[in-house]
């Protein structure tokens, strides 16, 4: 095994009261902020660009470049909004990070706000993780008490307030413009772009929207240098990230590693497939990224390599399914999700996801009709690239990729319900205790 883990954000999650400011400061916390405030804001933007840090929320857009898109200050407010609405199926990295060590995010937000001349920053956290919300509010409270937030931070003359805002249950609010509408107290529906948030974001003011992990990575870049960060990972996908293994592996969990690590390496660290079963399919970055199979075990998990194989690195949410799982059942359930979460704003997604759902329901029941597979592909073709935001695109990913790799299972679904070939419950977490394997 060549690649090793690089615990940075996850380094002290096992510490006693790991979430407190005290623990964070014992692990070099807020040293980067002092360095940043003593320097020039423009240098911070440059360092972010130079580090090669790319958005950790899925799209992989260069973070420093996003900051650089803001127009020059005009005297009016500019905002930083952290997207903590982690809801992409399979994605479970920001939640443990914010629960175990929320100060990484707070320090990163202060540095970023200083870099972009923002004086009021927001964390939009999904409302369904209430203990994380408690920890974030507490982290902000501690940071105020220590003088890291508020007026004249550490004597620098820089002022910043942070508001932690809880959502109310809507996957679409992970889309950055829908998130902004939601934060403005509206239905969370995506906006037409352009204008991009950098020009007209929150309250139509210049706004940077970044993922939790992106912002949490900023202090390490400031403290150790852009070169240090860029020295990890691959040529165009620099740095480290949390890889979340879930499903049929022996030891599911969070593994922080340089980008470019492979599933084979990660599986070895995680003790291999559960019960020694065979890997059937997996998602590299959540359900919106086209599925991979056991043929992709050695694909470096970086933005370029995963894209070259026809999928997306996404959020590094590696959902692992073994040979006992029906791909038709899996895809149908994901499609239920997209139909449920489609915001209804644009026609291809609103109508298309419901058509897809209906077809997949009858395929699950073994009552497919001739032409159904082609119809699925055709509907996907009419959603992909034609919907308002990426939700519609994401809805097509599992379907088209599953048909590509497992067409025979969809053909079987013309006459055979999935349960007959893949009895449910054969590899649940509790299969051993509650029923025969």
């Amino acid at each position: 095994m060549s690649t090793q883990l690089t615990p940075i954000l996850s380094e002290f999650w096992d510490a006693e009261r790991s979430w407190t400011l005290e623990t964070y400061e014992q692990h070099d916390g807020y040293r980067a902020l002092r360095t940043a405030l003593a320097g020039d804001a423009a240098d911070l933007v440059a360092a972010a660009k130079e580090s090669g840090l790319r958005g950790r929320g899925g799209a992989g857009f260069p973070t420093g470049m996003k900051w650089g898109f803001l127009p020059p200050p005009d005297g009016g407010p500019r905002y930083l909004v952290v997207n903590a609405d982690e809801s992409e199926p399979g994605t479970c990295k920001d939640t443990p990070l914010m629960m175990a060590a929320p100060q990484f995010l707070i320090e990163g937000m202060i540095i970023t706000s200083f870099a972009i001349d923002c004086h009021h920053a927001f964390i939009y956290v999904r409302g369904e993780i209430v203990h994380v919300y408690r920890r974030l509010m507490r982290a902000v409270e501690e940071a105020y008490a220590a003088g890291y937030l508020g007026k004249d931070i550490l004597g620098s003359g820089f002022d910043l307030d942070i508001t932690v805002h809880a959502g109310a249950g809507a996957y679409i609010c992970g889309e950055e413009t829908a998130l902004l509408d939601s934060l403005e107290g509206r239905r969370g529906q995506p906006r037409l772009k352009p204008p991009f948030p950098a020009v007209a974001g929150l309250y139509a003011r210049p706004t940077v929207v970044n993922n939790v992990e992106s912002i949490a990575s900023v202090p390490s870049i400031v403290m150790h240098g852009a070169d240090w960060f860029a020295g990890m990972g691959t040529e165009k996908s620099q740095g480290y990230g949390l890889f979340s293994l879930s499903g049929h592996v022996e030891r599911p969990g969070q593994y922080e590693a340089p980008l470019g690590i492979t599933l084979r390496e990660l599986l070895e660290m995680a003790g291999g497939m559960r019960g020694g079963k065979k890997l059937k399919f997996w998602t590299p970055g959540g359900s919106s990224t086209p599925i991979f199979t056991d043929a992709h075990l050695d694909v470096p998990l970086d933005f370029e390599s995963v894209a070259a194989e026809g999928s997306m690195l996404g959020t590094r949410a590696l959902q692992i399914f073994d040979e006992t799982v029906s791909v038709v059942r899996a895809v149908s359930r994901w499609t239920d999700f997209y139909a449920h979460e489609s915001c209804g704003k644009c026609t291809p997604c609103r109508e298309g996801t419901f058509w897809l759902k209906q077809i997949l329901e009858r395929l699950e029941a073994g009552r497919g009709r001739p032409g159904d597979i082609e119809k699925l592909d055709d509907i996907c073709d009419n959603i992909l690239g034609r919907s308002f935001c990426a939700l519609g695109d994401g809805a097509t990913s599992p379907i088209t990729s599953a048909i590509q790799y497992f067409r025979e299972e969809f053909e079987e679904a013309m006459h055979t319900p999935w349960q007959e070939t893949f009895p449910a419950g054969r590899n649940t977490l509790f299969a051993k205790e509650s029923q025969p394997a």
Partner: protein
Amino acid sequence: MSGTHEREDMRSQLDEASERRVHHSVPGHSDDGPLHHHTPLHASEEPYPEDVLAQLVADGEQVIARYPQKRSALLPLLHLVQSVDGYVTGRGVRLCAELLDLTTAEVSGVATFYTQYKRHPNGEYTVGVCTNTLCAVMGGDQIFDEVSEHLGIGHDETTEDGRITLERVECNAACDYAPVVMVNWEFFDDQTPESTKELTDRLRAGEPVTPTRGPSRVCTFKQVSRVLAGFPDGLADEGPGAGTASLRGTLLAKEKGWTAPRPDSGTDTEATPEGQAGGRAQGQYGSVDADANEPDEVPTSEGVKDVDETKGDER
């Protein structure tokens, strides 16, 4: 005012229409079974008692003060309404509208968009079983079916004693602990049908239950709603920092002696760009854009464009 009445009427019609749609869109929901009786949003017409109203208005003003524009307070205010009424009531909608200078239609439009806002009285505890693909395969489907049978209620229905509302929930960002059950949005990891049924029995018996990753006890729906409105309940320091799965990489690295690379000298200021007086350390990395390294660079749209081109990134 007749205009207001017209709006109200239209709203209730829209509500009914959208309720029907919401029902059809629920994954796995069977339309054959008994439908939960949905109380319309305007059901609660009786005004708030004076002291309750005074507290709501005072809290509401605190919420509003957190935001540069007051409409942003709407989501937390709706959580606040639920913390008093147990769901989004008509009087709650009117209160939000008054506090934020919105129409009741605007408030209802928002309240009906988000799944955490309940449109009929909610149980004291929402038991949400994740039935998105991964959890479903790992046992979530079986858990939901068995718990549903055990309680005698389906999705979005409440036990007669008012204790438990059962829900299928979407991915709750805890996939490494699948199958996951949420009780009032606290994590119950690695569940089995037996453990979840026992959990519901304890909740119905009024016994305290402790989440896997959360405070020492699960709060009621109303109490949690108040937290979601942004009023801390003092429980942040309870519970673990991380669960077993979250720690696997951290502990494996310790065991193997793996650490992240450290800058050469170990004295951080030397290696950071900010530590370089009057200039910047030149990156050794091939794809670093030299122009962006200028210490006096201020982000302008022109400068950014240059970076964009030299970086060659598409998005």
